[in-house]
């Protein structure tokens, strides 16, 4: 008898499964039918009013559909955790003025791709998201709407600051220009230059890696005199905080390799300037606030805090870091003392090198959401970068340097690092390094690189092994 019962259950389960899967696909079909019907009726309701012909269920559904789609709504998945609160207030303000609902969600550090992947599968998918360049576009091309005809594109001063598809159309538009280099605390540097026997007389003397190295090592030796714990803030090698090294710092050797080969992309990276990378990376590791072996615990926040508290004289980061430093409790760094130094690595002719200026922030509109939502999203962007109110937010709260012509000469951020970026941009004598890392093959490549750096710092790998990993992983990931 027991056997009979169990087989009965099994049969039922099977039947149920079949029914379920059948029902599932049916639902899908009818769901999409329904949506298109809703769309049609919403078009016709304007003319004929409520017709009352359709069944009750139908009208209920379609009216709900109408109210959802008529105005459209915006859902932006934000990439920058440091300005999340600003985005929230922008969203609230936009909803207040236009009535269009705007939702902003911020992905945590280093999880943007994961968050985007799970969010975009939702019914309420992000309507606005960002791609980090050609590599990002390759991953998300099914979801990127064409932006060629938008006013946003018209406003771009440099029409190259876009992501183009194979068809030559525009799918992503840069919305912020950023710069990074070695941020230094001028007060500490002045204190050092005043010491007897200093290796340089002023920051203007530091124009190559040799001088930088001499100065840094001397400063490290005299750290007590200077009242610091180390010259460089911790080289954050916590596995989710390695982007300053595996992406930003790696840009420098890549940039020169591309320049030598006179190309814009590489199937195989030789890492010809790997020694130069090692030069600067060793300098960071050996003259740091934190002992080499402990760096695996340090995050970017830790190093920015160390810098803000005056424990370190230098830290490699970009202009976005100002808001982070300014928020540190007990911040000891004066606004006027924060400056950028180019990242010197010992490459010939680096005396004229500037800081790294470019972008990896390209805004994209989700092509798979309703037309209303796409239109609402573009309207939101045009408001943000075009209207007085929006521009005020961008300049004074987000503190973005934008590539758009809508911003007047005086409409630039007031924070010291952004001003430094502007200074380097306008300095004719400096050759700024472009952000070539947007051609990095994948996040996986970056992570593997970061892991190798961590092992190098803690003594588990030597430099030639690191170089080997970089070269091999690049080739493997590029040829997937």
């Amino acid at each position, binding site marked *: 008898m027991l056997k009979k019962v169990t087989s009965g259950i099994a049969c039922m389960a099977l039947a149920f*499964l079949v029914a379920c899967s059948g029902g599932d696909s049916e639902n899908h079909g009818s769901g999409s039918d329904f949506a298109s019907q809703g769309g049609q009726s919403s078009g016709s309701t304007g003319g004929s009013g409520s017709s009352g012909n359709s069944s009750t269920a139908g009208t209920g559904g379609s009216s709900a559909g109408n109210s959802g789609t008529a105005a459209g709504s915006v859902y932006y998945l934000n990439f920058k955790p440091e300005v999340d609160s600003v985005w929230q207030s922008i969203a609230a303000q936009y909803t207040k003025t236009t009535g269009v609902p705007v939702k902003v969600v911020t992905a945590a550090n280093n999880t943007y791709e994961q968050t985007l992947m799970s969010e975009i599968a939702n019914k309420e998918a992000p309507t606005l998201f960002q791609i980090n360049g050609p590599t990002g576009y390759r991953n998300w091309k099914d979801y990127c709407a064409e932006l060629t005809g938008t006013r946003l594109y018209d406003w771009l001063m440099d029409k190259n600051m876009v992501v183009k598809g194979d068809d030559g159309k525009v799918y992503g538009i840069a919305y912020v220009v950023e710069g990074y280099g070695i941020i230094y605390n001028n007060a500490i540097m002045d204190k050092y230059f005043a010491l007897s026997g200093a290796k340089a007389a002023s920051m203007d003397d530091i124009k190559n890696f040799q001088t930088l190295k001499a100065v840094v090592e001397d400063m490290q030796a005299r750290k007590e005199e200077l009242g610091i714990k180390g010259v460089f803030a911790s080289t954050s090698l916590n596995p989710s905080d390695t982007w300053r090294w595996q992406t930003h710092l790696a840009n420098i050797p890549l940039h020169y390799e591309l320049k030598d080969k006179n190309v814009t992309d590489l199937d195989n990276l030789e890492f010809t300037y790997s020694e130069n990378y090692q030069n600067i990376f060793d300098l960071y590791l050996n003259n740091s606030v934190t002992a080499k072996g402990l760096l695996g615990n340090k995050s970017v926040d830790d190093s920015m805090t160390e810098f803000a508290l005056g424990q370190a004289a230098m830290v490699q980061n970009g202009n976005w870091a100002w808001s982070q430093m300014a928020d540190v409790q007990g911040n000891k760094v004066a606004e006027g003392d924060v400056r950028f130094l180019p990242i010197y690595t010992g490459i010939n002719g680096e005396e004229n090198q500037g800081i790294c200026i470019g972008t990896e922030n390209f805004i994209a509109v989700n092509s798979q959401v309703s037309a209303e939502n796409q239109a609402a999203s573009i309207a939101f962007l045009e408001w943000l970068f075009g209207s007085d109110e929006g521009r005020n937010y961008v300049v004074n709260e987000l503190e973005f340097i934008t590539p758009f012509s809508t911003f007047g000469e005086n409409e630039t951020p007031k924070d010291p690092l952004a001003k430094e970026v502007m200074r380097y941009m306008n300095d004719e004598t400096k050759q700024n390094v472009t952000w070539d890392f947007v051609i990095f093959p994948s996040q996986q490549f970056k992570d593997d690189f970061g892991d190798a750096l961590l092992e190098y710092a803690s003594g588990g790998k030597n430099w030639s092994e690191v170089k080997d990993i970089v070269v091999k992983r690049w080739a493997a990931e590029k040829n997937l």
Partner: protein
Amino acid sequence: MQKTLKRYFPIFVLPTLIAFAFAFIVPFVMGVYLSFCSFRTITNAQFTGVRNYIRIFEDRDFLNALWFTVKFSVLSILTINVISFVLALALTRKIRGTNLFRTVFFMPNLIGGIILGYIWQQMINAVLLRYETTLVANAAYGFWGLVILMNWQMIGYMMIIYVAGLQNVPTELLEAARIDGANGLQTLFRVKIPMVMPSITICLFLTLSNSFKLFDQNLALTAGAPSKRTAMLALDIYNTFYGRSGYEGVGQAKAVLFFLIVAAIALGQLILTRRKEVEQ
């Protein structure tokens, strides 16, 4: 009565069956199907056959994770069960404060894995600080950290099960053994252990499946660092699915393989230990 029960059986079972189907069977079948697909989000899947299963073995991540998991599981199953059994033996003697001890040992099991992972990360790093190194510097630290963490969390739970088993050993058997002149060790191996075989079956099953499926603790403690060398299977699957674009299907295929491995091992173990159980 029997007959009516039988007649209405389907109706009584239906609600549970529906819930079970929605929460388990349907996602499971969909998951298996997706492992044969290439997809970015689960709503736009395209059938690609066994390609995902081949791609699993293109790099060594999965095999490394499997080997790490096996090493970890063997060691932690042994240590957890031995230590918790010894504790259970100690706490079934009539010593003062038995209940207090049982509670204390059981407590860690009530803390979530993620939190435990971070707590132990802090503690281990605080110790390693003296040697100017960290948990993520060497894969061996991560391995032993995980073993210690798992022991700390699971021992209390297993101990409670063993305590219950030991208390159910009939006193007349123990008395008879004593009268026959059996010493403590003989009583333990000839009477107590055979009598608590059902508990051992359960404990082995629980520790085995928990060690094999370990995820939260792994994620919080090391997240696989350095260079994925402390990533266990579940974490590797998660990283493949969410960490690499274009690898969602491969992650799904890994998950199906993972299911088969866990099911095979757990069933094998159940059959083996069941055989050793004796009727009371």
